[in-house]
């Protein structure tokens, strides 16, 4: 069996699960909830199969054994593994806290990641390992980083939900913050979708699309009118979300997750993710860099952004544990922390190197 069949199955399952979880949230029908869980587990099993098969294919092509030939070497493979970790973390939470309400918030992240893979048409081919990646540290470093990323993704979802549930006043900074965040996500995704539709014929790969054409169909358009319109539409969308955000609150409040549970999950996933990220992401990364390049720290954008991410979560832990910040304030930090994670993971590769490689093009 080919791994792509299983990957396809799992993508379909997760997107179906996303719809089911949202339906469950809206109608609170138990059958729908159980179906959603079954579909998610089925997707997870099929994705596990797919990863194992690809791992075997990968190791055979490079002829370097399972521990070194780890299929975690490009954007496609890492996104797949991220989704896998995220779903695993979600299933653990569903089982431990005996609630399905988070499904509607976490499966969309998985669904979006998979949709991003498919829309972008990024390379799914197996590329053999370049010399720099041929190291025993690859497995530990990348795997632990992504386990931590998925923990942070969980804390992002629960942190955002916490803000949605606990804010009432439309003038409150926390309310403005979460409606702004949600608008930002929708606007960025919509703008990228627009780029894709406008320029897909002109580019060869998604990397090139993002590097050369990001927001060219909207905010950075050649035409001033399009640029102005884009900003106006964004402002309008933000206003709508800000005005009607209360509806979302009612939906979440309807399913009986207490704000304390949300706060607790946010803290726990960061308390798990932080040490894993420190050890696997920063320390193992530094040791590997030391072996490969003779420098354990060079302040390159990827390293610096990992450190920035680390600072965000260190900030979260210190403000919570030492200054006794609870609730909204720390939830905001948790949400911002995950923005740093996204930038460390995707932004650095797609945007910064893009800016830098522009000079040499």
């Amino acid at each position: 069996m080919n791994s792509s069949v299983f990957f396809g199955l799992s993508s379909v399952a997760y997107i179906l699960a996303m719809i089911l979880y949202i339906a469950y949230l809206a109608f609170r029908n138990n059958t729908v909830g159980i179906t959603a869980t079954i579909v998610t587990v089925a997707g997870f099993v099929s994705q596990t199969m797919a990863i194992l098969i690809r791992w075997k294919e990968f190791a055979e092509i490079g002829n370097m054994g399972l521990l070194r030939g780890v299929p975690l070497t490009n954007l496609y493979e890492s996104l797949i593994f991220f989704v896998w970790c995220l779903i695993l973390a979600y299933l653990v939470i569903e089982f431990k806290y005996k609630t399905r309400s988070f499904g509607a918030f976490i499966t969309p992240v998985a669904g979006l990641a998979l949709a991003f893979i498919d829309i972008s048409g990024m390379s799914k081919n197996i590329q053999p390992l370049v010399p720099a990646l041929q190291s025993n540290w690859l497995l530990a470093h990348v795997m632990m980083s992504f386990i931590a990323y998925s923990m942070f993704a969980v804390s992002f979802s629960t942190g955002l939900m916490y803000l949605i549930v606990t804010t009432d006043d439309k003038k409150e900074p926390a309310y403005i913050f979460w409606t702004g965040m949600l608008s930002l996500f929708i606007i960025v995704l919509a703008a990228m979708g627009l780029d894709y539709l406008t320029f897909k014929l002109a580019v060869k790969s998604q990397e090139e699309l993002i590097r050369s054409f990001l927001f060219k169909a909207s905010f950075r358009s050649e035409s001033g009118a399009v640029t102005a319109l884009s900003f106006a539409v964004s402002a309008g969308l933000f206003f709508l979300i800000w005005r009607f955000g209360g509806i979302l609150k009612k939906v979440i409040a309807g399913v009986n997750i207490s704000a304390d549970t949300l706060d607790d999950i946010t803290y726990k996933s960061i308390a798990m993710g932080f040490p894993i990220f420190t050890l696997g992401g920063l320390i193992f990364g530094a040791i590997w860099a030391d072996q490969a390049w003779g420098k354990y720290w060079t302040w390159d954008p990827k390293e610096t952004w990992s450190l920035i991410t680390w600072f965000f979560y260190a900030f979260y832990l210190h403000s919570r544990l030492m200054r006794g910040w609870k609730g909204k304030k720390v939830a905001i930090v948790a949400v911002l922390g995950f923005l740093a994670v996204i930038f460390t993971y995707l932004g650095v590769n797609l945007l910064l190197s893009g800016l830098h490689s522009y000079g040499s093009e």
Partner: protein
Amino acid sequence: MEKQNNKSITDRVWDLFASVKLAIVIFTIIASTSMVGTILEQQADPEKNVKVLSKMFGLGHDSAHSALKVLDSLGFTNMYHSWWFVTLLLLFCANLIICSIDRLPHIWKLAREHIQPLPPELLDKVAIKRSLTIKGKASGAKELSVAALLKLGFKPAEATSANGVQFYAEKGNYTRLGVYVTHLSLLVILAGAMIGLFFGFNAFLNLPEGETTSVAYKDRGTEVPLGFELRCDNFEVDYYGQGDMPKSYKSWLTVFKNGKEILKKSIVVNDPLTFEGITFYQSSYGKVPNSEGRGIIILRAVAANGTAQNIQAKVGDSFMIPGSSVQGRILDFSPALSVDPTGRYFSYDEMLKNPAIQVAFTGLKDGNYTGWILKRYPNSWNLPGGERLEFLDYWGVEYTGMQVRKDPGVFIVYLGCIIMALGLYVTFFMSHRRVWVQIAEDKGSTRITIAASAHRNKAAFENRIDKLVGILNAGSKGESK
């Protein structure tokens, strides 16, 4: 820290540095300036950053230029080595040290303080509470409780009061110090980095095949003596299959000291050579300038009967295949041979991506033959008459590029990393756990009250306490039979 007017300046400075607020401010400044540092390429050609700025903010070339000038004068183009960034890092250290010293005595006291029995009215105030009633006398319950606590890894002490008997125990007092271990590790890592900065060096070395050196080069060409000699015997790129995707870069090195050969080692990326504290990392390669035609072609000629002989030759040279009348003459060399649709041969790269020689053979069984012999295609080595000409190497025109580093602080950095891993584990996955079990007899049955607390991760300890309750329940049923 609250403001108090009667405090001396030293006290106020101390309080400032002991505050988490300052830590948060420093975190924020380091993080936000670092962001700027990742957008601007560090220590780069100014034109590159002008392009970055004009692309990002839509500035014209001139205004981007002046913007860069401002950023440059503020040190943002070599930010991580600028005085203010280093000052920030030092402030961060000072904050960390003073913060820890400020809080340590209190936490140390908490860790050293031994658990005391609690009067019943206070048991109610403890975070985790459970109670159960079992049949039988208190003596049975006592034995049962001690056994259950031991099973959970606690060593209970006993106190008797008017209200009955109380067992109390604690574990992991010193896990309260985990966070200080983590902070200490950061300081150890920074100390290691400092040692590296002052007593080590970073250099590079481009060493052509066959050459020996006793120095490496820092930025701007400053020589760094190695204290021994290093020779590059050979350099080679391996490819995946027949494609141009590199599989490995490999250099064969020999170390000499006082003219004596000390050791030989081949290095690849991720597997460096270390000698006398200096480490050589495979990092790049290239062609020695003006080396066209100077390379040595290394061949192995094998006769039809298996007799073999190694041959070193240059373009234009002739050679014999041993034990035969076959003579070869090397007509041409290509570093990267390819063929265009019309059947014409050409070199598609300057680097040795697909080295090939064109050889004219005479004296073969079926007459004469001229063909290309390719290093990466052993099929091309076979001659029509059963002889074989193996193309082993084209030697002497490539150099290996190596990072050369001496860093006596790296072990301290690693030590700091280990301490940090331990500290984080203790901080996040262990806690100071206390438990009190109060036993009181009441009209033929016995009431057991359990109170427990953990300074972190309460939920996990709550599960353990539920297990304790389970053991007690099961034990009491077993006894009442």
